[in-house]
């Protein structure tokens, strides 16, 4: 076995690198400025800070933002879309809904393909999968002509009922491959084998949109890494919480979109596990962003459908909720009341204290006035903050409210913390979860700053702060396995389901995912398949996903599925109907390929001496200025126990510990904070 495991995560400002040395069991980390014009430069520069000869790297995993950036900046491929005749506008109309119900000037997000580049072909499948109108070769020649004339990078083919019978999609692909061999082609049924055409089109189109960018990026990176000696596969973090090889990532680039943030969720699960916390609320808070995800029973909470940039994506993703509150949230006065958010000052100009011309008070400005963050060591000292500017904007609000500056600053933080807690509670309640049964894991530059206050509001008793909170996503990526998901729509009353047909569909999915796993050099004995089903009461739209106990459907499985469904429905919604008719809608399969994983790191052992603060400084706690001890995380070891109020500085963030929390250190250097009465 080679020596190193390497994890790399690209962020907006920095590229984070984490290296595990298997010989010593130690992790080392590095940060290098991200290089937006050629992301792989930043990656290689960062790696070289830690290891020069990549031939010693046995496992290299990477979270890339190349795809999501292309989507956000609308810099993807020039595409054509081929659809069934009569349905040219399905993509433009979407679901025709208006989420902002009091907005008479509502506009949908601008689509990734303009109407003139959508081409209809005459063909039609029926809902039962039979051919209603056959596809004709002559029409395809016409299609080739219209594609030839414009220089498209890729074409997506999305036909009605292709989830049920994909023959026509396949036939068009075959024909086009022959006539236009350089064209990149995406088929909707290969992306998602599930009904609902708009969502399937949207998923396929996004995949095609980011495909050339991802391919280009990965090829460059692979070449660079190879030049530096890398002999093992490059692995890419997927949105579903698993990894895949770069080769597979080029086929399904849509799965790289949440590549970065997911690393944090997976890392949280690992950190939770060594103190027996299986149920976690994972909070990733940067200077201006606030993402929340959940882990239940040690597994990431994965949703079958997510939305990015208001476009639906129907492939499984770790459910990451971006909440409209964070360090950048602005404070303002309305009707004599104090409001915080939902508007954010963003990162440019950002909070007033960034000194980039921002003139609106933000949560970060308030934290600075309270002494909770330091003007010189904010986000690991990446930028120094302008205290005077913070005072000025908060004073303006204080005057309007008739409060002192300090009172106002603390109020702004309290409101923001309470709002973040409210948002987390709504999220957990909608999933039938009581947040009080969960531990909170906080990371990112600003996560540890707010975590204890949020925990207080939610009635959460345990908070974990990872030892390497600043490069945590990259670290988390080293804790994963290979994962692939598949789905088949199969609509039937559960009691009347055809067990043979179900087994046939599961088998089909096993064969196709097994192939993807083998392609990534996973041996059969390291593969695990889990069968699941989406169920609902007849008449309902939303489904609940429940696992089968076995990998083969037996007669008794249907009864077991039904029982699990009734129970889970009760847990989520607070009621169920045991006499109700239960329907199957989709069959799902999760294929896992186990890989040799990194260890948590070296056991730290007990401290040799007591923990001494590096300084004391004045900090505001409940409207009172108190001299407060400040520790460095480097000085804290497993036998130490520190009682709040205190502040702990880490290289990448500041941990604010109010009075009723006690801080302890686990064997791997992660902090565990316990809330007292």
């Amino acid at each position: 076995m080679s020596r190193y495991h390497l994890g790399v995560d690209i962020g907006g400002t920095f590229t984070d690198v984490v290296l595990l040395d298997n010989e010593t069991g130690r992790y080392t980390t590095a940060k290098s400025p991200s290089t937006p014009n050629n992301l792989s430069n930043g990656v290689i520069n960062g790696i070289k800070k830690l290891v020069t000869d990549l031939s010693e790297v046995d496992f290299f995993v990477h979270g890339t933002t190349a795809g999501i950036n292309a989507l956000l900046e609308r810099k993807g491929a020039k595409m054509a879309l081929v659809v069934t005749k009569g349905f040219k506008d399905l993509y433009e109309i979407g679901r025709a809904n208006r989420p902002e119900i009091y907005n008479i000037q509502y506009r949908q997000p601008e689509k990734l393909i303009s109407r003139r580049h959508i081409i209809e072909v005459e063909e039609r499948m029926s809902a039962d999968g039979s051919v209603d109108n056959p596809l004709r070769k002559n029409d395809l020649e016409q299609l080739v002509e219209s594609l030839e004339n414009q220089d498209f990078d890729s074409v997506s083919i999305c036909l009605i009922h292709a989830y049920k019978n994909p023959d026509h999609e396949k036939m068009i692909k075959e024909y086009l491959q022959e006539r236009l061999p350089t064209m990149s082609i995406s088929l909707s049924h290969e992306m998602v084998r599930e009904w609902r055409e708009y969502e399937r089109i949207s998923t396929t189109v996004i995949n095609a949109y980011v495909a050339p960018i991802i391919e280009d990026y990965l090829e460059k990176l692979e070449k660079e890494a190879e030049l530096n000696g890398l002999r093992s596969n490059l692995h890419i973090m997927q949105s579903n919480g698993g990894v895949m090889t770069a080769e597979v990532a080029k086929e399904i680039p849509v799965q790289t979109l949440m590549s970065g943030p997911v690393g944090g969720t997976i890392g949280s699960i690992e950190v939770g596990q060594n103190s027996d916390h299986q149920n976690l609320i994972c909070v990733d808070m940067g200077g201006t962003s606030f993402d929340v995800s959940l882990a239940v029973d040690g597994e990431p909470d994965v949703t079958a459908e997510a939305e990015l940039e208001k476009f639906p994506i129907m492939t499984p993703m770790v459910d990451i909720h971006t909440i409209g509150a964070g360090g950048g949230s602005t404070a303002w006065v309305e009707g004599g009341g104090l409001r915080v958010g939902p508007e954010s000052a963003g990162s440019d100009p950002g909070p007033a204290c960034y000194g980039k011309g921002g003139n609106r008070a933000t949560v970060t400005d308030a934290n600075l006035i309270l002494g909770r963050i330091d003007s010189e060591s904010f986000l690991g000292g990446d930028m120094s903050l302008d205290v005077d500017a913070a005072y000025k904007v908060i004073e303006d609000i204080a005057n309007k409210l008739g409060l002192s500056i300090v009172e106002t600053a603390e109020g702004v933080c309290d409101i923001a913390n309470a709002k973040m807690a409210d948002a987390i509670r709504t999220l957990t309640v909608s999933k039938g979860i009581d947040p009080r049964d969960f531990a909170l894991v906080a990371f990112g530059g600003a996560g540890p700053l707010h975590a204890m206050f949020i925990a207080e509001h939610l009635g959460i008793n345990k908070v974990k702060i990872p030892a390497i909170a600043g490069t945590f996503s990259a670290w988390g990526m080293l804790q994963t396995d290979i994962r692939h998901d598949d789905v088949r729509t199969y609509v039937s009353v559960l009691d009347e389901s055809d067990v043979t047909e179900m087994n046939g569909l599961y088998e089909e999915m096993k064969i196709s995912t097994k192939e993807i796993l083998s392609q990534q050099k996973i041996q059969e004995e390291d593969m695990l398949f889990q069968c699941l089903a989406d169920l609902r009461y007849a008449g309902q739209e939303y489904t609940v996903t429940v696992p089968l106990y076995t990998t083969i459907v037996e007669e008794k499985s249907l009864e077991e599925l039904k029982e699990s469904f009734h129970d889970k429905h009760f847990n989520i919604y607070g009621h169920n109907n045991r006499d109700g008719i239960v329907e199957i809608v989709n069959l799902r399969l999760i294929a896992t390929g186990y890989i040799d994983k990194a260890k948590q790191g070296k056991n730290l052992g007990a401290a040799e001496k007591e923990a001494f603060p590096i300084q004391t400084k004045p900090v505001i706690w409940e409207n009172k200025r108190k001299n407060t001890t400040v520790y460095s995380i480097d000085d804290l070891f497993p036998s130490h126990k520190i009682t709040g109020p205190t502040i702990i500085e880490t290289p990448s963030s500041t941990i604010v510990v109010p009075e009723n929390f006690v801080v302890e250190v686990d064997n791997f250097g992660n902090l565990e904070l316990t809330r007292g009465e």
Partner: protein
Amino acid sequence: MSLEQNLKENPITTEIIRNALISAAEEMNESLARSSYSPIIYEMKDCSVGIFNENAELLGQSSGLPFFLGNLDECINLTTNYIGGKDKYSPGDVYLLNDSYLAGAHLNDMTVISPIFYQEELVGFSATRAHWLDVGAKDPGSPTDATEIYQEGIRIPPTKIYSKGEPVKDVIDLITMNSRFQGSALGDLNAQIAACRTGERRFNEVINNYGLEKVRRAVDDIFKQSEIIDRDNIASIPDGIYEEEGYLDNDGVTNDPVRVKVKVIVERENINIDLTGTSLQRTGMTNCGKAQTISACRVAFKHLIGSESPVTGGNFKTMKVFVPERTIMSAEEPAACGWYFTPLGLLIDLVIKALSPVLKDQSAAAHYGDSMVITLYGSDNREDTSFLYVEPTAGGWGGFAKDDGQSGLINNANGDFKNMPVEVLEGKYPLKLKHYGLRNNSGGPGKSRGGLGVIREYEICSDDASLTLWFERSITPAWGLFEGQSGSPPNVTVQKNDSVESMLKVSGKSLESGDIVKVETGGGGGFGPPFHRTPELVREDVLDGYIDTNDALNEYGVVLTEDWEIDYEETLNQRNK
């Protein structure tokens, strides 16, 4: 003393409590939408929830439909009066009502109310309203040609369905057995009760955290803040009298157009909406109770001038609505109220139009106007069962100062409703969609173009099917503003063998396999003179097929060459003609 100086509680505590109450309402809605049985609730979000204090004043609300903004409070007051006062409530009680003349909406909208107690003191209410699929009207779902409320389903005054935590089984059965879909009715009722319980639990948690006195003081302040915001917003509108009127095609039974007339009087911090001149109540179903009319006026206000802050019991204090008795907006027995939202949609559009001269940036030209509902029902030969398919149809929205109107978007009454995917529709019903797309050339010309309507073409695959249609606004299609032009009116054709027939409203027309129903919805109105639209944008519209070269020439005065380039010289000539 100004209102600001009257605020009593610390603004920080007040704000935390305000946010907690809003989030509590969101949790109620989450619970309701996700556990209900009817697609009309979980998919169309035809529901609304709220938490109220003991005086039935709104603390936090979450609404799936804009129309349900603020009239649950009215239902609580009516219930309290009906049962003989607040001291008649016990912990664990639940009440249900749907009467149109009390609650304002149609009988399908069921309102569930539950008192909230804290240490044996009545401290508030939680309430939910949701649309039940069927309440036993003469036809499945909702008829289009009822002439009396007695044909529209079971009519329920405030009725106790849970007593001290125990279900009143016989009463619940009596109500749900009047639905053609009893299981779904019971499922939806349970979802509504569960949502009320969620609201009750969260409100109690807030009181536990802060103490009842502190919560009450904060709530007083929250109301005052809302009032200040309203007063400031209204004061910013120039004083004046703003009038408009418009027509519905008919009431579905008799043929005369239905008139809606609004007079908006703005005087300093007060706004009065006077509906005098609106049609007297009609034989057909375009009537609604006054409670819902007031709610619609509040929605218009919220669209145009309200702040983004969620509504509370402190809002609308300086808004008055006057409706003469026995009009379509203040219906009394025995008026049928099934399509109550059709005149209300027009009312909202007219208030926006009336105020547009003084609120140009906030306004928009009219949208296509109504829900444009198609109902298909009959027997499903494949499975030997019956089916009922009901769907509102999207259309074009009006252009506005900054942008074109949105194409293919659901009407204002339906909020965040999502259309039914073609694949799901064909999988569930004996229907086939031959065509679903945008209706070219239907957007009203303007500097900002109106959005396009849609076309949906259904082929019937059942030998025993019936069609019911409710399409509207052909007499008053989506108007333009500031010299923008109207969008196209709606159109529906039914093709049987070789004969083609046009109609907009019909009840239970029989159809058989192979018949084709083609519905076309209207486009939105244009905003600003069409000749002020840049030739480049007009060309883009032609290239994408939203308009054709005829419209480019005749409506926009833009001339394109054979290879689709702009002929600037000719365009200038056209525009200067």
